[in-house]
């Protein structure tokens, strides 16, 4: 199998997480419906769910009562954006987001535009960073929501969410939603302290299972001066999760997410330092090839993501050449036989060609120095070969 360097897409389930989930699935006492209050089976399952809720909350500086389980970050983003838009539609119909958000934010915003809302798309600088002042300048009296990601999934840059939170707090009636699907275990998250009203989380980016995530909904008191965000539910049918997300909870899934987040919080500092060393090793190796451009701010990124563009190499050929050896993401979305260049890299000002010839390396817990060295060796060989084929020779 190729070396797996795509942890920003998804991570393998931690064996301890898998064991905890399997235990729930195999148990003769833990299969109850967590919402069944009439018997002990429901009590046992409910206790497991609440324990996982506390684990998730603790990992991100939130209160357990602020955790709403969802099927993943995409659903959480949809619930936050449509939920706020619907609830506050009489107050205003303007949303602020950025051009480099995940599709799970951009597509709901596009849909709201089709329904009559207005959306301002902030443009980051060439390193992918937003100036919080851009948010302040974009706010209008009818702005009900600012939706920005914490850690960018393609380039790894970390936005200054606390500064944006302070701006939103001063602008009455504007709620802040943060997509933090990539953040947990990679950089500190302080949900309560950052002035964030809504935060989307995903389990499978953090060595948990696919199919489960959460939306944090701040329970800020009115006395805190900001009030408490309200949402209109998007699905109905049982009143679970404070009426915001109906449906029977998958106990084993949330148990897995709870443990995955607890492990991430425990391992974060040591693991981040180790991954940072690996990322430096990878970048040094790639930079030595010449004609390799780093995408995103090196100083303001998590070390788990390294995105680079290769000059003089055609994107599809680059991916085809390394695919047997390396599992990485390309800077283009292959929605058809013809790839489309990454809109994130295009927003940073990268040309179409360089966007297409970019690769995202996602480093993770299982990544070793040998993996990095293999990646550098493969890329050195294939980039040189493709440059020769292209007549680009050495780009140094």
């Amino acid at each position: 199998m190729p070396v797996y360097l795509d942890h920003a897409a998804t991570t393998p389930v931690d064996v301890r997480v898998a064991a905890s989930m399997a235990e729930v699935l195999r148990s003769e006492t833990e299969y109850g419906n967590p919402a069944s209050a009439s018997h002990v089976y429901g009590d046992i399952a409910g206790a497991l769910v609440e324990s996982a809720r506390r684990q998730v909350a603790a990992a991100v500086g939130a209160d357990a009562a602020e955790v709403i389980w969802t099927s993943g970050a995409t659903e959480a983003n949809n619930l936050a954006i449509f939920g706020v838009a619907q609830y506050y539609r009489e107050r205003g119909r303007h949303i602020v987001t950025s051009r480099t958000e995940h599709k799970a934010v951009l597509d709901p915003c596009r849909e709201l535009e089709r329904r009559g809302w207005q959306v301002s798309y902030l443009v980051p600088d060439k390193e992918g960073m937003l100036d919080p002042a851009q948010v302040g300048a974009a706010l209008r009296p009818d702005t009900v929501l600012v939706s920005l990601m914490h850690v960018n999934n393609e380039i790894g840059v970390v936005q200054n969410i606390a500064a944006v939170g302070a701006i939103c707090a001063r602008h009455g009636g504007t709620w802040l939603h943060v997509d933090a699907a990539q953040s947990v275990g990679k950089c500190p998250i302080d949900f309560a302290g950052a002035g964030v009203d809504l935060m989307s989380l995903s389990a499978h980016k953090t060595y948990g299972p696919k199919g489960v995530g959460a939306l944090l909904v701040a329970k800020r008191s009115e006395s805190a001066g900001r009030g408490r965000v309200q949402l209109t539910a998007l699905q109905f049918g049982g009143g679970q999760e404070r009426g915001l997300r109906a449906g029977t909870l998958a106990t084993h899934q949330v148990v897995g997410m709870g443990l995955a987040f607890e492990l991430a919080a425990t391992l974060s500092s040591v693991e981040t330092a180790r991954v940072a060393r690996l990322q430096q090793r990878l970048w040094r190796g790639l930079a030595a090839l010449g004609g390799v451009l780093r995408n995103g701010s090196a100083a303001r990124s998590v070390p788990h993501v390294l995105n680079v563009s290769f000059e003089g190499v055609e994107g599809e050929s680059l991916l085809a050449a390394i695919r047997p050896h390396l599992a990485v993401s390309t800077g283009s979305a292959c929605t058809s036989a013809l790839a489309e260049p990454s809109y994130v890299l295009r927003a940073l000002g990268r040309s179409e060609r360089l966007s297409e010839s970019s690769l995202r390396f996602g480093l993770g817990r299982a990544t070793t120095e040998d993996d990095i060295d293999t990646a550098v060796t493969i890329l050195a060989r294939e980039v040189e070969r493709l440059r020769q084929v292209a007549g680009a020779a050495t780009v140094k």
Partner: protein
Amino acid sequence: MNYNDLTRRYFESTANVGELKGPDVFRGAAGNRDQGTWVQFDLRIKAGAVSAASFLAFACPHTIAASAWLAERAVGRPVNSLLPVGVPELRDRFAVPIEKMGRLLIIEDAWLAATVAALDYRESAHISDRGE
């Protein structure tokens, strides 16, 4: 993107890459790197036939493989203004998706530019020999 065996073989073990030099070498290129596809053929012509061929391509695997295959097949063939095989046959041999047909036309344009250069040279040389 999936590639058939022929495409993968000629893409991964690309031969005849580079440029030829000499007065008997004729070059043709088409496409544009900025547009994503550029192909160049060099043909060495001796006694009206291709004695050597090479190519360069900033292009996708299908285009690189088809160009490499054409350069290999060209040797020994009489120079004329046709591809050794037509675009439809190239498409079928390399299982090129319909969305990429334009890239095969770029290959054809590059090839024709090289062969036309050779034929023009031969024609002008012939005219010169006759003192016209």
